[in-house]
């Protein structure tokens, strides 16, 4: 135990002497939580639309004003020929173009039918897709309005329509911050704890100090604990900063129990730190450790269910995501913070993350060799 005390004393002295690490721990979560949720927003606004209006009638301008009034579109071109509109798309001025044919009004009234043409710039797939869908909805609504006007009112609606109304549970207003902030906090905690622990041991290898440690009678377990404990504390601090910020800035108050969140984070951090230690035992330079850690963190982030839903991934990807510890943290964060889940709801998450923690740390301990 005395050895451990000296190891911890040394680690904390080194950490507090390194201004960059202090900055990483305090400033990084603040900045990321301030900026990322605002940028990582799924709502698509400001879609640039260019319209070719061959008709220039009352109906066509009515349709156009309906579209622009929706707030999703910005009219960046109003042309007489489709060629001009296409040029707008090619020069990136427009994401979508809508062609209203000549005799739009007349055909609508006389023949009760008229086709419009929609062309989409699919380079930004998400924007174009959603834009196309929004636009179709607006046109359909407009269509219905017209029917009401044109078809004489009868007692029986000639066209039965199923109307859906929906309400969003747990995030009533579909507030993206509520959805993104807990997830981003999960990434932050993972990155800081994982990277710092991976780089720390490798730095000792690079400096040659690890050799000096290896000729001393320090036990492996003491050495590893001496590295784990300080970064575990750092992780808890980062998490607390993040939780406070999301309350102060975004007004996110966890519905579930905060001690439960801390309980999960405590075990989760052990898993992530074990992962960092494991990387460090396989690497000789900080560069190698950085790239390997980065490689895995990228996978963890993209396959963690933060940006894309795991349920809509192909089967193989779902299987991969089961080995992604971050996935469980993101789920738990959302469950406890948004849904108010209790321990019983997340007990399997606890179990799985505890297995991660045990396996990763045991592996790191086994692979750390004082003697080669």
């Amino acid at each position: 135990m005395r050895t451990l005390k000296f190891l911890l004393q040394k680690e904390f002295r080194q950490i507090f002497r390194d201004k960059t690490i202090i900055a990483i721990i305090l400033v990084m979560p603040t900045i990321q939580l301030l900026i990322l949720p605002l940028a990582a927003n799924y709502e698509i606004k400001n879609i640039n639309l260019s319209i070719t209006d061959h008709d220039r009638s009352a109906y066509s301008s009515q349709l156009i004003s309906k579209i622009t009034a929706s707030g999703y579109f910005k009219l960046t071109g109003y042309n007489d020929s489709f060629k001009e509109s296409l040029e707008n798309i090619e020069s990136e001025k427009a994401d979508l173009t809508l062609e209203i044919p000549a005799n739009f009004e007349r055909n609508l009234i006389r023949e009760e039918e008229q086709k419009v043409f929609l062309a989409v710039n699919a380079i930004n797939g998400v924007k174009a897709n959603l834009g196309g869908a929004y636009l179709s909805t607006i046109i359909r609504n407009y269509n219905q309005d017209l029917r009401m006007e044109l078809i004489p009112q009868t007692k029986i609606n000639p066209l039965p329509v199923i109307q859906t109304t929906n309400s969003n549970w747990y995030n009533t207003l579909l507030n993206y911050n509520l959805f993104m902030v807990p997830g981003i906090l999960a990434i932050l905690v993972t990155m800081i704890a994982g990277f710092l622990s991976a780089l720390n041991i490798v730095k000792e290898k690079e400096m040659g100090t690890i050799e000096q440690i290896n000729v001393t009678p320090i036990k492996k377990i003491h050495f590893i604990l001496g590295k784990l404990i300080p970064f575990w504390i750092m992780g808890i601090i980062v998490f607390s900063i993040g939780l406070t910020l999301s309350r102060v800035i975004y007004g996110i108050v966890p519905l579930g129990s905060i001690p439960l969140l801390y309980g999960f984070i405590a075990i989760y951090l052990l898993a992530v730190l074990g992962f960092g230690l494991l990387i460090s035992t396989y690497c000789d330079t900080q560069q190698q450790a950085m790239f390997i850690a980065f490689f895995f963190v990228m996978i963890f982030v993209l396959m963690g269910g933060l940006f894309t839903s795991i349920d809509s991934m192909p089967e193989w990807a779902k299987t991969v995501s089961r080995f992604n510890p971050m996935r469980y943290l993101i789920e738990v964060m959302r469950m406890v913070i948004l849904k108010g889940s209790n321990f019983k709801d997340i007990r399997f998450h606890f179990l799985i993350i505890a297995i991660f923690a045990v396996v990763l740390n045991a592996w790191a301990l086994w692979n750390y060799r004082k003697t080669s």
Partner: protein
Amino acid sequence: MINMKELVIETRNLSKRFGDFIAVDNISFEVNKGEIFGFLGANGAGKTTAMRMLCGLSIPSSGDAMIAGFDVYKETESIKKNIGYMSQKFSLYENLTVEENIQFFGGIYGLSNSDIKEKGRALIQKLGLESESRKLVGSLPLGWKQKLSFSVAVIHEPKIVFLDEPTGGVDPLTRRQFWDLIYEAADRGVTIFVTTHYMDEAEYCNRICIMVDGKIGAMGAPDFLKKKFRASSMDEVFYELARGAQRKDA
């Protein structure tokens, strides 16, 4: 050496292979307690590899060795309690102060708090580092770092201290002071095992062993070797042996 000889290092046919490459090839030698034993050889002759095996940092491929009475295969952790080690690379913590380094290494070798304080103060005084004791080790000149590093390596009064090219890049005056520290430790009964490139330093040793291509080329007291090779200095002895080496600089 009139008193009863006590062996602290004993090796028999010790070898280390890395794939096809035989870094250390069947070396056998003994070192007595309190002796200053010099280990010489060109770069790549296998000095560092041999030393790493003796410190328990590297497991031998074959052969036997006992260090301070412990086996290098099975009892590496007991060996580590009884030795001090100073590597080629400076390996105190540069971002800790002089005092903090002493406290840390004293602590992990199991010295009591009062011992750490006392020995630390004595050590700082001896090295004349009083005004630097609260400075980061990284800010000290190389010569001071090396002297400090040696003093820390023997702070727990080990039976043997292994020094791997301790005076590389150090000025002649500091080297002289460094050797004073070595003699002092040897007088206290600490066995010194030192590798070096400097032939004048070889003359300071009680006995030397010259490695050539992983094997022992010659071994004995400096005067004995000079006579044997009919050389006027250790330089000549070394050239005579090194000329026959097959390995290029590694």
